[in-house]
């Protein structure tokens, strides 16, 4: 979450795994093992290109049992802020990248009796790490993976060749769809659902789960799409007396790092567009807390207790 624990890594291998997806294998510079991670974790990769800085989160897709290397897969998104295009264009074998320590906001439930994973496109990546962990723990699972076509879906062929009994593959160019209501209707109590994919797919999965009477605590989502932009605004820092200008596409946190402000949590009175999935609905309504990384402003000004 923070960038304090960042480290430099070498790119040991790059492989084109689908039409717009490359897999990068990262190893430490000095043979020391990388920090251990749990299945579902991601790292934030910092990319610097002259005056541009991008910080993109990528799921660790390798086995959590292997601390020698991290593996990430990057989908090139044409209309993005440019980080994924930079990875595809400028990063090759031998490049040095700056990555954060692994953070897991999408862990497997420890109490769950069964685990159902729903993946769409590049959303397959955290599940590959989970598959390795689940195989080791001999846990009960099902994986449903939908791709646009075999050319667009990374690791589709690998999974098809492995022919695992609980892995189900779907190609939307052949009209194949995940029959989620049927899948959710017949699961034993204590089953957990995990969804990673395009926003529309996750909304659909959450809604279907609720309609099938699944408790929210049994449904887990991983969202990596870029935050929507806000309006330009002025942010006042009450304690230090600083004033900061936040642009449309900037995060409050982003302006902090360039202004040398250390930001833990805060208090606000502006019109906030929260955008995060960390705070509860009540916390968002009171406006007493906000995440400086995701929150955007609907114009006006905001005062923070910093």
């Amino acid at each position, binding site marked *: 979450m923070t960038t304090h624990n960042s480290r430099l890594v070498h790119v040991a291998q790059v492989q084109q795994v689908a039409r717009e997806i490359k897999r990068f294998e990262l190893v430490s510079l000095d043979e020391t093992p990388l920090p251990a991670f749990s299945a579902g974790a991601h790292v934030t990769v910092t990319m610097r290109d002259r005056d541009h800085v991008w910080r993109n989160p990528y799921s660790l897709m390798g086995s959590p049992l292997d601390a020698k290397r991290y593996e990430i897969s990057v989908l090139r998104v044409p209309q993005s802020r440019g980080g994924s295009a930079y990875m595809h264009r400028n990063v090759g074998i031998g490049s040095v990248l700056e990555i954060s320590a692994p953070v897991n906001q999408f862990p497997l*439930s420890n*109490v*769950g*009796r*069964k685990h159902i994973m729903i993946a769409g496109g590049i959303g397959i990546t955290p599940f590959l790490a989970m598959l390795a962990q689940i195989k080791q723990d001999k846990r009960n699972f099902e994986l449903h993976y939908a791709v646009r076509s075999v050319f667009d879906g990374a690791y589709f062929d690998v999974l098809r060749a492995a022919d695992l009994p609980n892995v189900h593959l779907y190609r939307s160019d052949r009209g194949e769809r995940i029959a989620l209501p049927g899948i*959710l*209707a*017949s*699961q*034993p*109590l*204590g*089953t*957990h659902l995990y969804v990673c994919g395009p926003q529309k797919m996750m909304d659909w999965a959450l809604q279907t789960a*609720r*309609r*099938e*009477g*699944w*408790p*929210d*605590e*049994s449904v887990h989502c991983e969202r990596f799409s870029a935050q929507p932009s806000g309006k330009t605004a002025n942010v006042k820092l009450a304690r230090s007396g600083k004033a900061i200008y936040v642009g449309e596409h900037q995060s409050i946190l982003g302006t902090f790092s360039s202004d040398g402000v250390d930001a833990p949590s805060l208090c606000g009175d502006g019109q906030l567009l929260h955008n995060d999935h960390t705070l509860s609905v009540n916390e968002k309504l009171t406006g007493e807390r906000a995440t400086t990384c995701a929150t955007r402003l609907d114009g006006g000004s905001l005062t923070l207790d910093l």
Partner: protein
Amino acid sequence: MLVSGNKSRPIYRGLEPDTFAKHNIIVTDGDGCAAVIEMAIAAGDAFSKRCTVLLCTKDLSDHERDESVRALGPATVWFFPTLETLLTRLDGMLRTARMGTRLYASGSEPLIGSTVKTALAHGIDHRSVSTEHRGSNKRRVQCVHCKGMTEDVTSTAVRCAHCGHTLLVHDQYSRRLAAYMGVRADAEVLGETPASIGVFQ
């Protein structure tokens, strides 16, 4: 002596129906039943028809029991003379239940705690159980020395039902044990125990 504001104390948010649930299992006792009836009336008959109520009739007269059943309308009601027998049945029901089954508990803290504890063993998150505290404030207390459980504790200090030590009842709660912590009251000066006060009536 009680350390109040302990963060381990559960928060009971009140019963809330999940109208999408295909089956609702509701654990309750004489006092908690009023909350179940209020929820059933608010949610309507379509919801009640999908409810199975496990009612602990320990403190109820036959007349009160029959009144409760009438008030619960179209829900299926099963009676149990003790909480232990009720929990054995609940455990069996959860073993074969499917997702779409929601769990509710309303009544004393030991009843709610035991229901949540049983649910945890079946992979249900404790936050997924809808709970409402009604009636007595009695507690289930575990002696930290002999690990024995003392049921229906209404005062502190209290005598441990197993090792006989006089225990101060703390606010520290264990979800895994569904019990509060009891620590020897005369650990510093042997035989010097405070007067027992009925704070959990």
